[in-house]
């Protein structure tokens, strides 16, 4: 016996696989509602390695009942500067402010919060299979530093990220089509020359980042994440595109050096229609809950986690862990977020069809006044004006936005 094996001996209502933002928010809420909660994570350090651009809107922080905390909200961003392929700038100031966060600190803080509420964490331990009985997921098989154990629980929550191994082992097909993911690579750098570190910087163009974009998310006056997301099936690697970009912009990068490399897979297709099964709830990237335009997933994941925790509590009260009961989780999430993300996917498909010339037209069209009108909510009238001026874009929109 030892520290890790002792944790496997507890009686648990719910086992959450994965200690990311989704898993730890769910753990916090489950434990708070009185459920005996165990979180299992294969890493020896929660929060590391980072696979993220680390941008998070203020609105998501509030939705997850969190508060501004300078230990992880390390830089504020007032909006975005978008650069057209020819380098023309569009400054977009939004009503919703955002933060660039230190994700390692963020995830540790979420884990610490959940533990304070009564959750237990079993780290450096890998779930290598699920236990099924009569068509229900009733537990997990876990490999700890002290050997292999079976742990049973009423509910298993798969919050294990884009790999989504737990759901797959339970028999839910969570495989992403290679055309429906973005491939991401990122350097965190110091020594950046930025004239506007108060904004995030987004560079678009079919040559520099096919179907995606290159970003600089400042974490300070001269530090920040420099990253790229491109279509998963592109012949060149994300790293190659990013390295080319850095080389061709000495005015930003001449004095800069990276002190952290990050990367990952961003599921930018449709969210999983059935993020549940008998005895199983699936949350976050594992269920493809990501905004398909910007690729952000922390917010959607935490929002789903709050709903999933509520449904888990209700399921334990009613002693019903059937997929029929868990359907309510999906219904609530799609109503609150999922249906909107499906619409966002259509907008992505529209943007994906645009040539560099089309992007220049957009850069011309979206003057500061137009953008203000747009962010004031007059989206339809702005689009109508654009399409009246550029019928070709209207045709593209007609085929993709239906």
């Amino acid at each position: 016996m030892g520290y890790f094996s002792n944790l496997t001996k507890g009686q648990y209502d719910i086992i959450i696989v994965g200690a990311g933002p989704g898993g730890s928010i769910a753990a916090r809420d489950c434990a708070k509602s009185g459920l005996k909660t165990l979180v299992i994570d294969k890493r020896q350090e929660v929060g590391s390695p980072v696979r993220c651009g680390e941008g998070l809107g203020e609105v998501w922080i509030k939705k997850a009942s969190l508060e501004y905390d300078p230990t992880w909200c390390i830089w504020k961003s007032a909006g975005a500067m978008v650069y057209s392929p020819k380098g023309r700038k569009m400054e977009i100031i939004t009503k919703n402010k955002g933060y660039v966060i230190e994700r390692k600190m963020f995830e540790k803080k979420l884990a610490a919060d959940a533990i304070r509420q009564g959750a237990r964490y079993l780290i450096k331990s890998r779930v290598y299979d699920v236990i099924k009985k009569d068509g229900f997921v009733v537990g997990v098989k876990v490999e700890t530093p002290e050997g292999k154990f079976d742990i049973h629980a009423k509910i298993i929550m798969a919050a294990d990220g884009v790999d989504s191994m737990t759901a797959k082992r339970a028999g839910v097909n969570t495989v992403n089509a290679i055309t429906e993911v973005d491939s991401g690579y990122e350097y965190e750098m110091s020594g950046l020359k930025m004239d506007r570190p108060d904004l995030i910087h987004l560079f678009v163009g079919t040559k520099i980042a096919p179907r995606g974009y290159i970003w600089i998310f400042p974490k300070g006056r001269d530090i920040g994440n420099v990253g790229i997301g491109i279509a998963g099936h592109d012949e060149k690697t994300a790293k190659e595109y990013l390295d080319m970009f850095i080389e061709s912009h000495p005015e930003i990068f001449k004095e800069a050096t990276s002190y952290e490399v990050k990367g990952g897979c961003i599921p930018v297709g449709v969210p999983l229609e059935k993020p549940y099964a008998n005895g199983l709830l699936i949350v976050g990237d594992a269920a493809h809950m990501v905004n398909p335009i910007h690729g952000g997933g922390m917010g959607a994941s935490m929002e789903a986690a709050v709903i999933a925790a509520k449904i888990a509590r209700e399921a334990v009260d009613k002693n019903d862990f059937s997929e029929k009961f868990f359907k309510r989780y999906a219904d609530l999430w799609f109503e609150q977020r999922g249906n909107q993300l499906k619409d966002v996917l259509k907008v992505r498909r529209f943007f994906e069809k645009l040539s560099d010339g089309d992007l220049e037209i957009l850069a011309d069209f979206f003057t500061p006044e137009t953008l203000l009108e747009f962010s004031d909510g007059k989206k339809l009238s702005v689009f109508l004006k654009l399409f009246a001026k550029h019928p070709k874009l209207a045709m593209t929109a007609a085929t993709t936005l239906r």
Partner: protein
Amino acid sequence: MDKITVDKTKCIYCGGCTSVCPVACLELIETYIHCDQDKCVKCGNCVKFCPAGAMALKK
């Protein structure tokens, strides 16, 4: 026989390859990618996807 290889000096251990594998033969275990070569169907999705160019399908 064809074989999936991972260049450990290039791999950034993001696990993205596992998510586009149609037969779940890849798994990220702490700091290495494990490939079950018997299960692998040599589709090359992981090779195309890999942001770091660490994966290859070798003869």
